């Protein structure tokens, strides 16, 4: 039997880091911040978790530190994209590159090794019922996020900020505050994802160990339309594809084919969902504002153009 509970289990195990990161990405997207720096934030979490666990002997402190450090790291995106209005795409890419360089640099200077730090006395997270505690946390987080976004006051305001930040501003809701909040939350979640990666299934840090999972999380956000439940399904799809890939290796298919499978599957899923969406909305013509926009009307004001 190919599709059995073992497959599901291994899919679920692989799922956690991607799910946490994708959840963070989805929250940012709902708030109107395009966050593709998930990989970099996760990697910072990996390193921090390992370093803290090593120096304090407690994996839990490692988790906490990972969350805090990644949140601080995410401030770069918050300040750059929200306050300074820089390009979020470039910032995200820069965050990814910086994390790789920074963690490799710190690996050398703090631990004195290159490549991988893998000490047997490094304390990892205990398993509860076969899963890491962070896995349960991830699922709970999906529920909390879904509930908060759809029913809670903050969730409503965040959605408004993401949809039309100027409208929110005129009603006294500060877009900056909510966007910063969203980015910081994504930082925390990515930190937890990194901690899971580095202290969960394995207990080690190796250079660039996220191996593109952050990018998969970005794709999961797109596939899942930035909805917590959608993101869960997308992450599950990827997890299943990856687990199935490992299975296929047992059937004598080369490892490379199974390595490639999850990406091909994800691409296929994207084709299907975007093709379906395209059929429903016939034309990608530029959106027209329904009342005619007057050139400088009654909105914010400081530039030389705003007269009348």
């Amino acid at each position: 039997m190919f599709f059995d509970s073992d497959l599901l289990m291994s899919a679920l195990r692989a799922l956690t880091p991607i799910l946490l990161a994708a959840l963070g990405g989805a929250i940012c997207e709902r708030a109107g911040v395009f966050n593709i720096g998930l990989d970099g934030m996760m990697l910072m979490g990996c390193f921090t978790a390992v370093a803290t666990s090593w120096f304090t002997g407690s994996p839990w402190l490692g988790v906490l530190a990972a969350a805090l450090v990644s949140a601080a790291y995410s401030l770069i995106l918050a300040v750059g994209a929200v306050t300074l209005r820089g390009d979020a795409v470039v910032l995200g890419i820069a965050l990814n590159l910086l994390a790789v360089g920074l963690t490799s640099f710190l690996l050398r200077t703090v631990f004195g090794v290159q490549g991988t730090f893998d000490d047997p006395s490094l304390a990892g997270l205990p398993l509860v019922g076969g899963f890491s505690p962070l896995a349960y946390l991830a699922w709970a987080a999906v529920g909390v996020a879904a509930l908060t976004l759809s029913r809670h006051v903050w969730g409503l305001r965040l959605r408004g900020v993401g949809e039309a930040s100027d409208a929110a501003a005129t009603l006294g809701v500060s877009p900056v505050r909510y966007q910063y909040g969203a980015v910081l939350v994504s930082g925390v979640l990515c930190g937890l994802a990194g901690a899971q990666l580095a202290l969960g299934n394995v207990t080690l840090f190796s250079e660039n160990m996220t191996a593109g999972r952050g990018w998969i999380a970005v794709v999961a956000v797109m596939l899942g339309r930035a909805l917590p439940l959608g993101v869960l399904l997308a992450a599950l799809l990827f997890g299943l594809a990856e687990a199935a890939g490992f299975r296929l290796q047992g059937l004598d298919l080369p490892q490379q084919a199974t390595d490639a499978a999850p990406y091909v599957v994800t691409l296929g899923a994207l084709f299907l969902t975007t093709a379906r969406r395209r059929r429903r909305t016939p034309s990608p013509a530029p959106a027209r504002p329904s009342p005619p926009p007057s050139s400088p009307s009654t909105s914010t004001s400081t530039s030389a153009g705003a007269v009348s």
Partner: protein
Amino acid sequence: MTPPSPADARAAAVELRGIAKRFPGTLANDAVDLTVRRGEIHALMGENGAGKSTLMSVLYGMVRPDAGSVRVDGREVAFADPGDALAAGLGMVHQSFKLFDSLTVAENVVYAAEPRRFGLVDRGAARRRVRELAEEHGLAVDPDARVGDLPVGLRQRVEILKLLHRGARTLILDEPTAVLTPTEADALFAVLKSLAAQGRSVILVTHKLREVLEGSDRVTVLRDGRVVAGLVTAETSAAEIAAAMTGRAVELDRVHAPGTPGDVILDVTDLATDGVRDVRLTVRAGEIVGIAGVAGNGQSELVEALAGLRPVSAGRVALLGDDITHASATERRAKGLAYVPEDRHAVGTATAASVADNLAMGHHRTSLSSRGLLAPAAVRGHARRLIERFGIKAASPEVSASSLSGGNLQKLLIGRELAHDASLLLVEQPTRGVDIGAVRNIHDQLIAYRDAGHAVLLVSAELSEIRGLADRVLVMYEGRVTASYEKAAADERTLGLAMAGGGAGSPAAPSPVEVGD
């Protein structure tokens, strides 16, 4: 929020004294005084650039004045942002609505002032609140409808409900009837009058004389940043107000001589696209066909479909006899089509590029290059010629287009498209946000273009512009062309009726009319 008693009906709800605000290069407001009384509908009038928006931005806390004071209910206030203004009982409905399209009416109305239960939004209470307010003020709307799906008139109601939910005692409406049919506008004014009767105040920022005369109690006119008239509506006239706005005796509605139509250039048969159907029209060489209609009745979609920016789902479009129904924008332009779009900043130009680069677009493969190679000297020369011909005020052709004022950017756009010398010119809202001197210039250019033997299809929300320029006027309503008039028959009342869906006095649904010769 209990409305104030009739006893203080004469008291000032809002008082602006000595407001001054300068922006780089211009004094937007110069010692402006404005007093709006309780229970009053007060019109604030002036042309584009007169200072109305700036003044309201100051009142609403979006801009800090350089000098002067603002008083609300007798207390001096200094708003740091619109949130403060809202809390003080002021509410503004902007010209482009500040709504969340993907949220429901109830969510939009209670946003940032939500009824709560244990931190969660109390949806039932929100719905009830919307229904109560709607009933009390005659603004019926379904609380659970998605705002993005609502027509413009209802979206405006949501905006007003939003303010009433917060207990706004003074409402500021910026050009509220720009997007309404005459019937919807009447309904709006009925609501405003009842709000005023309850003791609330309304500030109406507008340039529409007729509505001001019919709906307001007092009028303040701004010109060049200063108050030039404070009038009581019942005691003044359209001519007096217009004269105050422009500073001279105005010839209202300048009408140009008609053209002499020749061959059919554009032939549209049974065209359908998003929200548009059964459109039949022709435009001949040497004629201007105007499309009137309240914004949002399919005009934009129709023009985009003709320009090749929106797919056509049925029907046929022929340009100079060739079928271009499914041709790309590139192919249409090659055949002889030019297009001045409504949105000059995001679509018609690339504001980050230089003036010369903007002027070169569309010419870069024809007159400005040979075999794919651009000639920089030609690009510069072309830019200089157009700058001179259309009076575009730019420091040099190399400066960024973002440094141009709105009016100059519009001249750039129109100049470039006219320079294509295309057989057919599609033009939308050619003089929106353009100062009066430039309006004349643009109108003259369009007439000259027509008289040179080209066909022009003009879409405009300004009835006076359509009536002045067009040889024939079509009216669009709910996605179809419902009426067609020759220039002589196109008076404001007839057009207004047709725009509202009526025709020949009949309130029944209009059938598509065969238009063209």
